[in-house]
């Protein structure tokens, strides 16, 4: 019997542990970790390939974290079935673990379309876990040509990570632009240009349709030869535990601000969930690390009987390639303010006296000020937007607001 059971040992899980412990110092906590690693920052895997970090430094928390927190971690096992009525979890090892409250933070899994001939490819990988990275790391060398299917965040970070270790990298995507989920055409082009300048080749609007050992046949009929294939088409939230137990699930597990699912004593947090995007005013999957932590934390506090809601989630991303960064947040709707130079773009979207979203490429300093305006729904009429749109600065705030922000403990 565990007072608190956490399924998934990633960022949401860590947030959940810390949330619980901020309220309850003694209740027993058990974590089911499918991966055989202590929690690590998932996005670090590209930096691992790149050599910017190593296994010693990838731990999200210090090595004695679980011990200090009084957490029992079960490594290498997966939860098969959740029984909220009984308060039990069945593991793939066959054992059951009774719990008081459970947090489902099962994350997401790579989505692999059914390509023809994929099984003939020897050296093929997803790029989701540390084990994926370790596997790629084992085969990557200067003689290798890499084909990455998918020009999204994962695919491109993988490309960056491998760039200096392999002979050649080609990224293909059915979409016409890179980072299509967060960048518009113009921004994507700027980013693509920068990537190309750093030696990444692209085949856009033209993805692989079939494979033959070391050859990919593209939709256009072109063929691309490769030694390593990386599939980064997309991810899907792991929702089945809750869905199977009868909980409400859309694309992700539906949660409220306290991270409660529709099932009794069952909470969920992280990439597997679907919460309210306040910039959009709709529920959606916000599979980003900060949200995972904050959701996890809110879930933990709620599970332990405390009061914490996470209800100002927005999508936001800081993504950089070869020292060139793009920052995005919120939704891109409403009036547009734009500021462009040859190597930078800034787009601010405003609606109903609110900043709704932005894309910033190249001039990212103090972008958090914009982010917070979206999150806090600060009326733009309360500050000097003329100054603000030119640069993210609290100088655009009224002196009173600045005094509030800077004048005391926050």
């Amino acid at each position, binding site marked *: 019997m565990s007072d608190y059971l956490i399924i998934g040992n990633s960022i949401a899980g860590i947030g959940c542990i810390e949330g619980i412990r901020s309220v309850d110092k003694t209740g027993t906590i058990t974590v089911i970790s499918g991966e055989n690693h202590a929690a690590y*920052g998932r996005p670090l895997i590209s930096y691992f390939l790149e050599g910017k*970090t190593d296994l010693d430094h990838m731990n*999200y928390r210090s090595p004695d974290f679980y011990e200090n927190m009084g957490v029992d971690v079960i490594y290498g096992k997966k939860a098969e079935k959740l029984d909220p009525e009984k308060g039990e979890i069945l593991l793939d090892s066959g054992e059951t673990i009774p719990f008081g409250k459970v947090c489902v933070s099962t994350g997401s899994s790579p989505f692999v379309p059914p390509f023809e001939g994929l099984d003939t490819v020897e050296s093929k990988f997803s790029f989701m876990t540390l084990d994926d990275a370790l596997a790629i790391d084992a085969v990557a060398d200067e003689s290798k040509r890499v084909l990455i299917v998918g020009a999204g965040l994962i695919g491109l970070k993988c490309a960056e990570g491998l760039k200096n270790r392999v002979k050649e990298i080609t990224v293909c995507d059915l979409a016409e632009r890179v980072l299509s989920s967060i960048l518009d055409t113009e921004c994507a082009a700027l980013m693509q240009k920068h990537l190309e300048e750093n030696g990444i080749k692209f085949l856009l609007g033209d993805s692989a349709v079939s494979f033959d050992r070391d050859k990919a046949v593209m939709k256009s009929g072109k063929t691309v030869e490769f030694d390593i294939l990386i599939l980064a088409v997309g991810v899907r939230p792991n929702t089945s535990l809750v869905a199977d137990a009868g909980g409400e699930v859309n694309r992700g597990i539906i949660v409220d601000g306290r991270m409660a699912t529709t099932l009794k004593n069952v909470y969920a947090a992280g990439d597997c969930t679907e919460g309210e995007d306040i910039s959009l005013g709709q529920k959606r999957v916000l599979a980003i690390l*900060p949200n995972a*932590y904050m959701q996890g*934390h809110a879930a933990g506090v709620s599970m332990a009987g405390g009061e914490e809601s996470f209800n100002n989630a927005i999508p936001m991303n800081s993504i950089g390639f070869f020292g060139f960064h793009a920052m995005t*947040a919120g939704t891109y709707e409403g009036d547009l303010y734009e500021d462009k130079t040859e190597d930078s773009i800034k787009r601010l979207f405003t609606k109903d006296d609110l900043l709704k979203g932005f894309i910033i490429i190249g001039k990212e300093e103090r972008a958090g000020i914009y*982010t917070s305006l979206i999150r806090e729904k600060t009326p733009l009429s309360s500050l000097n937007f003329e100054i603000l749109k030119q640069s993210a600065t*609290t100088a655009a705030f009224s002196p009173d607001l600045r005094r509030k*922000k800077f004048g005391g403990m926050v």
Partner: protein
Amino acid sequence: MKRVYVNEEWCLGCHLCEYNCAFANSGLTDMAYALKGKPIFPRIHIEGNEKVTYAVSCRHCTDPICVKSCIAGALSVSEGVITVDRDKCVGCLTCVLVCPYGALSPSEDGIMQKCELCLKNSCGEPACVTGCPNKAIVYEERGAAN
């Protein structure tokens, strides 16, 4: 906990805090040697316009969103002070994306650095505070702003 606060009424925008900060964290003993002929990467920045200037550095929030958002677990709170582990940071700038104060900026090599109240260097008191010619920057205990 004592924090660095800036009274913008007295900030002259002289930027000396930036230089004092850069020097304090350079590990060198001679300011000219440490800073001459190169761009500086201070952990405090003057912001403002013609009407107002003020220095901004980490607020050491009690509920820091940067720490929660760090993809590498490189930011942590130790006795109220938010510090960055340079060995863990990969320079993704997520903290820049979330900090509501614009208080974070990367160092020369792209790895994040931030105001750690000069607790880890030899200054004893934040160098921006000791060096401020108009006591616009102070290091003191305060409650929440009203």
